[in-house]
């Protein structure tokens, strides 16, 4: 990776038949999205632009085709692959379709990747509004050169997906991956029978505590616990019970306010380690333990105001927590076919302290829905 040179056809854009393209203006921002990146299967090994400088170097030249979907008025975008820039344009003379989506294909003759020695590499495709210079989309594509000289791509990742680099999987109803611990030692979590299928929802909770260790030794419910930054390993996921079984983390009847079909027997719970606070008369207090006033504030979420007007705050999630929870939620969504609108917060379905699960949902949801 990284030992590669990317190149655009030098006349791309300037040869466009639409030289009178209209610049995007405020309120008329172009939204562009990489639809696909296709790599030419034929690898031109000897026809690289830059000849090998050493006998041991082998240069490959891989033509690629990039399809970009552009939404907005007569559009022109800059396309870059690892910083090398070209242009893609689209315009219709028919005003009636100016606001429709366009697909622009950047032909392989205009975009090539030249690489040295590597058998696999990653390309980064970014689309930038030519006028505003705002980045509309960035995708990462992994390319593997096969032994027969052909090449294949392995899907596209958004920047957030690449940042997350989720590696979790589920085997025999248990989470597998780095930073995952499965143990019954000191675990008080009780099962409530078999996890009923279909699984209806993922419920986000907050421990109102500082550590997994404290929580699992006293909590009766939830399958998963995610460590915070105060104790233990930040972002560590602890699985308290098999996904074959249900746990006891929501009330099925009492104080329920929505989604009555979601029961503790058909929902998976995730407890996120973190403390709660509230503001009274301009001062901030702990909502746990001695409930004393705190003067040195940790990183906090925004205020979540309850129906009595009280401002509740929560520990802001750490980056490690956000990554772990997002990867876990995405995996569970895929494993159990749970749609994103069924990622629910504890307080959405049952009367609880405002912001308990919402602070978690707010932190992860853009990662959940942003990769479509």
């Amino acid at each position, binding site marked *: 990776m990284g030992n590669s040179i990317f190149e655009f056809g030098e006349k791309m854009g300037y040869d466009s038949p639409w030289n009178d393209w209209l610049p995007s203006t405020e309120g008329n921002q172009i939204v562009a999205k990489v639809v696909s990146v296709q790599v030419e299967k034929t690898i031109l090994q000897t026809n690289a632009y830059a000849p090998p400088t050493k006998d041991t170097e082998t240069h490959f030249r891989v033509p690629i085709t990039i399809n970009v979907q552009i939404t907005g008025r007569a559009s022109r975008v800059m396309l870059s692959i690892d910083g090398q820039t070209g242009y893609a344009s689209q315009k219709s003379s028919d005003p009636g379709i100016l606001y429709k989506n366009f697909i622009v294909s950047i032909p392989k003759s205009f975009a090539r990747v030249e690489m040295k020695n590597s058998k696999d590499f990653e390309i980064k495709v970014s689309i930038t509004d030519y006028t505003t210079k705002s980045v509309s989309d960035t995708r990462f594509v992994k390319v593997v050169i096969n032994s027969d000289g052909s090449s294949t791509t392995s899907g596209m990742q958004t920047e957030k997906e690449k940042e997350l680099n989720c590696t979790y999987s589920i085997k025999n109803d248990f989470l597998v991956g780095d930073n995952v611990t499965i143990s019954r030692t000191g675990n008080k979590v009780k099962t409530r029978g078999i996890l009923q299928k279909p699984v209806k929802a993922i419920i986000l*909770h*907050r*421990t*109102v*505590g*500082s*550590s997994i*260790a*404290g*929580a699992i*030794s*006293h*909590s*009766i*419910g*939830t399958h998963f616990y995610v460590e915070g930054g105060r*104790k233990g390993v930040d972002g560590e996921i602890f699985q308290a019970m098999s996904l074959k079984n249900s746990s*006891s*983390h*929501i*009330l*099925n*009847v*009492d*104080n329920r306010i929505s989604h009555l079909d979601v029961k*503790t027997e058909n929902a998976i*719970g995730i*407890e996120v380690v973190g403390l*709660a606070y*509230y503001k*009274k008369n301009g001062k901030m*207090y702990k*909502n*746990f*333990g*001695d*409930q*004393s006033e705190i003067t040195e504030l940790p990183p906090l979420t925004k205020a979540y105001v*309850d*129906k*009595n007007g*009280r401002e509740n705050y929560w520990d802001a999630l750490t980056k490690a927590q956000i990554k772990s929870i997002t990867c876990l939620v995405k995996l569970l969504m895929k494993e159990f076919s749970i749609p994103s609108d069924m990622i629910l917060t*504890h307080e959405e379905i*049952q*009367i*609880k*302290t405002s912001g*308990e699960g919402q602070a978690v949902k707010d932190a992860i949801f853009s990662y959940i829905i942003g990769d479509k």
Partner: protein
Amino acid sequence: MKNSTFYIALFILIGINLGCNNQKNLPLEKLEVISKDSLQLNLSEFNLDSLQDFNVFFNTRELSGLNKYVDSNIGVTILYSIGVYPSYTRLDSFEADKNFYLDKNIPFWIVDDFTANIKQRPQLSDLQTSDELIFECEEVFQYGNFIDNGPNKNIMSSSIKQLLEISDYEDYSQDYIDILKRDLVLFQQLESKQLRIVQTWKESETGLNKIAAYHFVINHGKLCLILIDFQTFNCSV
């Protein structure tokens, strides 16, 4: 259940009476809360009439009568949880003002439960004794009125022990740890002589299981409410 009508009247009427209710049929025992064997309670002589009065005060929202069951030295403790750990707040008396409880950081959903519409509770007659599991979470195994001798009778001291066990994790201040230790001694003394009364019933209107649990001791010959337990009903974390 948390929204049991059992608790509703607590928050309706204003009135403070620092004495506990006279327990006429029991020998008057002087209570020294912290001293060993200071509380005496002969269950066979327990006056059901007094409990019936207590029940009526709840049902009729008569806080002035209800506060007669609160000993100002012991107070009445509200046990609940907002996350995975128990929390508790001690009150000297009940008051009608909702903000009184919110100001003490009792969760609003519990306060809301107190102030919900009253539904008639069953009478506290035919008090049974049970060593069996009467309910768990929202599931009720037996309906009726019980002197609960099951594991939950020590719910308060076990909750305080939990809080002490996590004190290292939670970086509690020494002052708070000292308070927990003091309260642990207090409740261990109280629990050794207390009555845990559990009512379970099915509401006729909704068909829902309802649970109420409260703890009494006899102090100076008077029946005193010392604990309202929201913790053991709650399987929500």
